[in-house]
């Protein structure tokens, strides 16, 4: 119990303080507990659904509390803690604000990360992937001819539409999963599958955009 108490004691003014980012009494930034996840950094419950307005409000409040601009005149330790706490707050906001980033982080948090490169084409998007790759090849062969560029332009619009749809579907699933057990193995499995489909199409969209940014053939 003693160690527990010490964790809640401010390093700066030695008074008891809560689990807040800064001391309730002297406003000195506190070291983050080693087990703090990114939800905890912003004081959020571990849930897949996050209200964007609430997240932003928490982000701004946390930034006002820990940002180095607020701790300019404190001692070296205070400044160092402000810097690391501020970096953690920024990372939490960056990771949690988009449903995809949040999903990826959810997998990491549950010890089952998505993995960097997955070369197997997810079956659900296979048809679209192969079709797009053929058209990209046609564009390359024609060295950027106008007709092929138009086709690829349409493909880009389709890909964007599909990605928006998939992301919306995923967000709808978040609500369902939260209501049941979002840490369950089957939830993690489905989340991983959906995220890898989206990741695959995103990479493909990047390729398409790069091809479109390439030289135009008269």
């Amino acid at each position, binding site marked *: 119990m003693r160690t527990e108490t010490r964790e809640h004691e401010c390093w700066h003014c030695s008074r008891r303080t809560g689990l807040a980012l800064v001391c309730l009494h002297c406003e000195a930034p506190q070291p983050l507990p080693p087990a703090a996840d990114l939800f905890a950094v912003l004081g959020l419950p571990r849930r897949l659904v996050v209200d964007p307005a609430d997240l932003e409000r928490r982000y701004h409040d946390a*930034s006002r509390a820990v940002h180095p601009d607020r701790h*300019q005149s404190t001692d070296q330790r205070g400044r160092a803690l402000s810097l690391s706490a501020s970096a953690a707050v*920024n990372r939490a906001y*960056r990771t949690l604000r988009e449903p995809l980033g949040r999903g990826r982080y959810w997998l990491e948090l549950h010890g089952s990360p998505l993995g960097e490169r997955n070369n197997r084409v997810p079956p659900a998007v296979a048809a679209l992937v192969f079709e797009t790759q053929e058209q990209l090849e046609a564009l390359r062969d024609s060295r950027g001819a106008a007709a092929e560029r138009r086709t690829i332009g349409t493909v880009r619009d389709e890909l964007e539409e599909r990605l928006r749809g998939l992301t919306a579907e995923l967000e709808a699933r978040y609500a369902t999963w939260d209501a049941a057990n979002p840490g369950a193995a089957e939830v993690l499995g489905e989340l991983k599958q959906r995220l890898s489909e989206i990741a695959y199409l995103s990479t493909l969209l990047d390729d398409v955009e790069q091809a479109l940014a390439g030289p135009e053939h008269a």
Partner: protein
Amino acid sequence: MMDRVVGIDLGTTNSLVAVLDDDGPRVLPDPETGARLLPSAVAFLPGDEVRVGQTARALAGERPFDTILSVKRFMGLGLEHASDEDRRRYRFAEGSQGALRFVVAGREVTAPEVSAYVLRELKRWAEGSLGGPVSKAVITVPAYFNDSQRQATKDAGRLAGLEVLRLVNEPTAASLAYGLNERAEGTIAVYDLGGGTFDISLLKLRGGVFEVLATNGDTRLGGDDLDARLMDLLLAELPEALRAHPQIRAQVLAMAERAKRTLTDAPRTEVELTTPDGRRVQRVIARDEFEALVKELVERTGRPCRQALKDAGLQPTDIEEVVAVGGSTRVPLVRRYMEELFGRPPLVRIDPDEVVALGAGIQAGILTGGRRDMLLLDVIPLSLGIETMGGVFTRIIDRNVTIPVSHTEHFTTAVDNQTSVDVHVLQGERELAADNRSLARFSIPIEPLPAGVPRLECTFLIDANGILCVTATDLRSSRERTVEVKPSYGLTDEEIERMLEESFDHAEDDIQQRQLREARVDADTILHATRTSLARHAGRLEPGEGDRIHAAVAALAAAREGEDHIRIRELYDQLSTLTEPFAQRIMDSALQEALVSRPLEEL
């Protein structure tokens, strides 16, 4: 009284200093002349004499190599980054590694040292205006400055005796000034076209929080480039043999700059050049012609704007206000192009020359607790990464991520008994390390062990200034390891210490004394030059001119022996004005002799 923290806009063309008062930010002028803009010009004279500001700029025509006009363009760069035009314009120490060095009046100086002269002068202005010492500052930098350029700016501050509490991005600083003034909320774009750099920043303003969503830019695009195009146009009117002449180029450049300003309000302007053989060449420039000449440059700001919008996930229609910053946004073509990009006319309610300094003053106030309602959340402009196997650039921190940001990377060894791990850090968006800008090499010592056994944890932290700091821990011993930094184009701590010691040796104990000494040196220079010219070129004097000059020489020579530096300056100016036509006649004839005469094309 507590030390005031000032905000400094260290610009390519002009620099300013501001402070936050209870009723808002204000620019601090030169206490002697009342000038608000300090030309960022530094002239080096023989005998360790240095001129800053207006007097330095005036020397550019006469001493083009020793007068550095746009030092900001060289901050944090190496010799290999100097362009052909840079090499025509200045002399550099060849073969030097690391930070680029100018050769001026027989000595070598780095860009941070040159900038430090500008900062020292602004410090003097601020101390004079505030009536107390100033030792802390917020300095602005282009948002698109990389780590080396930021570090160089911080070094300049240190060399000038200023503790740099924060580097703030110029467009962000401008948004602070607007936000405070207009109580603005919503999504805004700040388009900042200065003397030498271009930045675009997109921000969300909400409840006093200024959150940068994305930034982009070009650190080598600005009003200087517009001037250079006009200069080329005017040089084409002169005989070819004259065009490469450094002094003539400097004079024509100054005329080009004036013509550009005139064309902001006037549909046409006339420039008159006097050739060395005494002929006058008149050239009328219509605004249309000027616009056609610089259209391509202005449109070069489009790509960064579109990229920033894309990175922020915004459409041009999402932008609720467009703020114009930097003197070059006065050019009507630039304003029209801004409107074309964002679909709305730009806001110019605050002087585009002063808005950045005012914002820096506000940020200084925020740091000292004067404005607890406002907070800036800025981003890193360029991706940061390390060189990995095969010269590949492995990105570890993406551009447009909010700072401070940290990233942890794990390293081990590739060969047995390796005693250090070397990390090469770069910044940029290209795939290959060689195509990005090298920032530094870090060497981290480790215990000699079989390959793959050591476990090193390396943390890359980018602070609120956008500057990288690397720390390393040996995970086997949990011991923190010192990281030895070799900046690619920067100054090491030892170099800065040495420069500081040298500057202390030259430290001025008393401003009055220094001004008197400077005034005397200037007086001696002009007296010597005038007496020599009178002796050698008496034949070129007009009737009565000789007597008037002799009288002015005698008056200045007498004042020079006194203690009143202001009086010396007055008489110096009188003599200088009086001898100008005479000097022009001498120079024309000298040049004429040196040239193969060639008929001028008449207009």
